[in-house]
């Protein structure tokens, strides 16, 4: 169901995948009962404090695949003066086990969650309101992400680092074919045809032909969205036409399929099996190493009435309302993810390849200041859309993902499929806003 299925996979889940954490159900269950990292000295009144009276904070991260990340976050935690912060590094199915642990007293005080807390966590009073932590820095954070983590006028998480997906192309292959990087969807379809030769396909959108990733960008291309506020955003004439484009690419046989390494790895592009590939910002160092400067980057093109787009995601730092000392936990989050800009920059660029969530930091990172990476950073600010809206619940996401698969892979009628989806999404909207 996926979810997105995995339902709602956040962009940076690939880091879990990088470690081979596929199907780690057992690990997620095992993670439920283990050490919370809170230390053993919780005082009887429930306020977590050590003998010295310092607050104890348990902070959870999912297992990042990049070497050095764990040491880095432990270093940040050790640098924090006012409280003792214990970092827990959670392998396996992090989102599931964290969501489950919030129901118990053995959960974290501070934790990261893909694209901020879920609507059910917010409405279930499981996470604390973090609006006041931002002060006048709120405008400096990537706007699409702040919007994604805001509900009821309050901000519920602080975005840590930003990941995005973009369309990467081989300059040389486009030049040989005499093609400009496509600005419009029609040009993209045409370019994919032109670029498809014997053993090269024009476009790689993932092994499902883009069903999982490009439904949203197609809506945005048509000037639509998943939701329009608290209403369905795709119940309009342009939507079926937009989604049908992905089916056209499929039946044209211009999309590459069946790759051992899916879209989150640049192998299809760098090995020359595809001329253009939809992939993540994190692949840029690998692409540059393999292709030098023989690659460029564009956002997903637009159709008439819409605009180009890139999906944007970030783990958001949240505070559990079951934290032993909510105030101390909030102070720590403000310190680390809002005030300590040098640590944020270090976390974003020193181990993997991500954007700092404060836009003012982007020019300060050497690796982001020029070339395709700088282009991508600009697209995030200008064309960034949160992957999916907050009110887009797992059930809606599953139904959407099923629909996209049927349209793209089975050739189902987009209009009929969309008509069937509307009541499902409306019921979910009513549930979460009612």
């Amino acid at each position, binding site marked *: 169901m996926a979810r997105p299925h*995995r339902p709602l996979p956040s962009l940076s889940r690939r880091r879990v995948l990088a470690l081979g954490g596929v199907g780690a159900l057992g690990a997620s269950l095992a993670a439920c009962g283990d050490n919370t990292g809170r230390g053993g000295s919780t005082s009887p009144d429930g306020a977590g404090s050590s003998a010295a009276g310092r607050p104890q904070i348990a902070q959870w991260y999912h297992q990042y695949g990049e070497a050095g990340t764990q040491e880095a976050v432990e270093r940040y935690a050790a640098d924090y003066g006012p409280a003792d912060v214990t970092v827990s590094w959670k392998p396996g199915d992090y989102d599931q086990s964290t*969501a489950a642990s919030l*129901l118990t007293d053995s959960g974290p005080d501070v934790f990261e969650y893909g694209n901020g807390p879920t609507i059910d966590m917010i409405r279930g009073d499981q996470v604390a309101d973090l609006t006041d932590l931002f002060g006048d820095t709120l405008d400096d954070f990537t706007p699409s992400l702040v919007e994604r983590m805001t509900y009821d006028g309050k901000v519920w998480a602080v975005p840590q680092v930003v990941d995005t997906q973009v369309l990467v192309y081989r300059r040389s292959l486009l030049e040989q074919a005499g093609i400009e990087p496509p600005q419009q969807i029609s040009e993209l379809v045409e370019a994919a045809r032109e670029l498809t030769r014997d053993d090269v396909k024009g476009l790689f959108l993932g092994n499902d032909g883009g069903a999982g990733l490009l439904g949203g960008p197609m809506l945005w291309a048509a000037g639509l969205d998943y939701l329009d506020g608290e209403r369905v955003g795709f119940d309009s004439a342009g939507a079926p036409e937009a989604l049908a484009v992905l089916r056209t690419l499929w039946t044209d046989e211009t999309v590459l399929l069946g790759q051992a390494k899916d879209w989150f790895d640049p192998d299809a592009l760098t090995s020359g099996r595809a001329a253009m590939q939809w992939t993540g910002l994190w692949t840029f160092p690998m692409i540059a190493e393999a292709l030098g400067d023989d690659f460029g980057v564009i956002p997903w093109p637009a159709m008439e009435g819409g605009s180009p787009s890139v999906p944007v995601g970030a783990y958001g730092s949240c505070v559990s309302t079951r934290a032993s000392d909510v105030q101390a936990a909030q102070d720590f989050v403000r310190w680390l993810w809002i005030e300590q800009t040098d640590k944020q920059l270090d976390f974003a660029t020193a181990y993997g390849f991500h954007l700092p969530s404060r836009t003012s930091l982007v020019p300060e990172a050497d690796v982001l200041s020029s070339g395709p990476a700088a282009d991508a950073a600009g697209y995030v600010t200008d064309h960034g859309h949160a992957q999916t809206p907050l009110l887009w619940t797992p059930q809606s996401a599953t139904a959407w993902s099923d629909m996209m698969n049927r349209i793209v892979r089975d050739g189902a009628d987009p209009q009929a499929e969309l008509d069937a989806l509307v009541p499902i999404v409306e019921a979910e909207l009513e549930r979460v806003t009612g």
Partner: protein
Amino acid sequence: MLTRLRGRTNRDASLWFWVFVGPFFAGLVLFIYVPIGWSVYLSFFEAYNTVTPTEFVGLANYRDMLTDQAFRDSLLTFVVFAAFIVPTTFALSLLTALLVARTRVMQAFFRSVFFLPVACSYVVAALVWKMSIFSGMSSGAANALLGLAGVSPIPWLSITDPPWYWLVIVSARLWLQVGFYMILFLAALQRVPVTLYEAAAIDGAEGWQVFRHITWPQLLPASTAVLLLLLINAFQAFDEFYNILAGFSGYPPYARPPLVYLYYTALGSGQNFGDGSAGAVILTVLIAVVALAQTRLLRLGGRD
């Protein structure tokens, strides 16, 4: 004196009974019956993000799940899947058992070879099937073979028409399971008294007749057990399906076992324990009904 002793022996016996059985019984109650009961309880409540719900909704969760097209599809798919995989696995494991039992050379070797896959993890086998045998690349084993015949590479798991993914899943499942049921049949075969075969041979029975009138009736109790286990296994399918078909963007809407769907509903970021529990109860009832019907229809093992 005698009665006192006997009383003590009885007490001792019951003490030791509980020492040995108690921990397992406690585990059974705590980890099996309590969760089942709790799940039934949850299925009558709205339970998003909580296992101690307060809002009683009656049968609404059951209505939700039964009107949920995706869930109904997964149930239907798996009735069809069971109808195919149960007889196939049954026939193949019986066949291998008969062949292995007959063979005179390297019997131990053949037994081990067919049984070995049982020792392999479903997850590992699924990944081998997905990434090396049925990889969509031209270097995948299946595609390399086809390449020799001049067929261009097939993206086995990407395309749905024709549904090659069933070939991948079914072959993985057969490879993993046949050996286990073969062992069950082998054990049953070895319990068939040799005297029956000798008597039949004297009466002139051979080949198919021997199987039809001696081996098969003698295997009936084992067959019942195998059929039931196969059936439950088919409905409980999860590991190899999940690891072969689930991708980064989730599990596609085809060949989706009910358990995978429920996993996403209840344990995924959905955390919808009410609907999830209702689905689990429906699935349990379905398995029980089909198993009962099967036993009745086939009248297997009834007189054992």
